[in-house]
């Protein structure tokens, strides 16, 4: 999984796990999502969630960090072996992001990355587009996060 040609549809890899502590949930919420059910145990207990839950964007941001760290590990390994490292473009965005269940204080979320589509581009011979689904699953095996991402990845065999 380096250059565009190395990616395979259906390939799924675990990218790491993260435990959401109450303190981290509240610290994120104070900055970016100050709603009562993310900020305060007592208010959260009275809400429909029945307890403190992480901001959905906190769940998403941790997924991003694990993806970046996973890519950096793989790139370091390529450099160590003296191999070329493919360039990747800035992300154009995210699609079909879902939070089917809340992430609660103390939950450990296992994140995974799966290639769902590989597309050559008519107007660009130097890169291809990889669509991937990133997911987060809690310790009970329940899906808590799912998102589709698109990434431009350098081709090994450049056309045009």
């Amino acid at each position: 999984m380096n250059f565009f040609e190395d990616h395979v549809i259906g390939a799924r890899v675990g990218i790491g796990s993260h435990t959401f502590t109450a303190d981290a949930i509240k610290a994120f919420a104070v900055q970016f999502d100050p709603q009562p059910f993310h900020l305060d145990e007592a208010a959260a207990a009275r809400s429909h969630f029945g307890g403190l839950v992480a901001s959905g964007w906190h769940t998403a941001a941790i997924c991003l960090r694990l993806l970046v760290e996973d890519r950096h590990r793989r790139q370091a390994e390529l450099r160590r072996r003296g191999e070329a490292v493919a360039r990747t473009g800035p992300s154009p965005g995210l699609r079909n992001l879902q939070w089917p269940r809340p992430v609660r204080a103390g939950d450990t979320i296992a994140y995974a990355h799966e290639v769902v589509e590989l597309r050559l581009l008519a107007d660009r011979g130097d890169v291809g587009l990889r669509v991937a689904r990133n997911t987060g699953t809690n310790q009970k095996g329940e899906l808590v996060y799912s998102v589709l991402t698109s990434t431009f990845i350098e081709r090994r065999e450049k056309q045009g």
Partner: protein
Amino acid sequence: MVRCYEDFSVGEVVEAGPVLVTADAIKAFAAQFDPQPMHLHGGAPDAILGGLFASGMHTVCLNMRLLVDGFLRDTSSMGSPGVDEVRYLAPVRAGDSLTMRLEVTGLRPSASRADLGFLRFTSEMRNGSGTPVLRITATLIFARREADGATGTP
């Protein structure tokens, strides 16, 4: 007075901000959630997009903050089931001052739960020059006013 599902209308527009994005804030977010060179210290010389710019997720999180400050406070917000689309339209740089404009695009009561409804919206963030940097289309869940008794709200 808490605004409930019934109190919103399609076409309602909310504006919020500005929020100033500093270099320190860009780097601090990157160190926690997106530790790539272009967000941590300004990128590599061969980077596709040069200089320091904010993680797209950082801009999304600032949009969430303005959504809470400008729209969700004192509502019956119950969170979100998901987001249809996030588009990063232009890089956000240190010193940019971002404003958000949200428009309610749809309202529909839940088919399975009489006590809540779904609100669809599109929000767009622009920098100080008026250039759009982010667009989000998403859904929010609000409790319905009729449900007040059932939830024990005085």
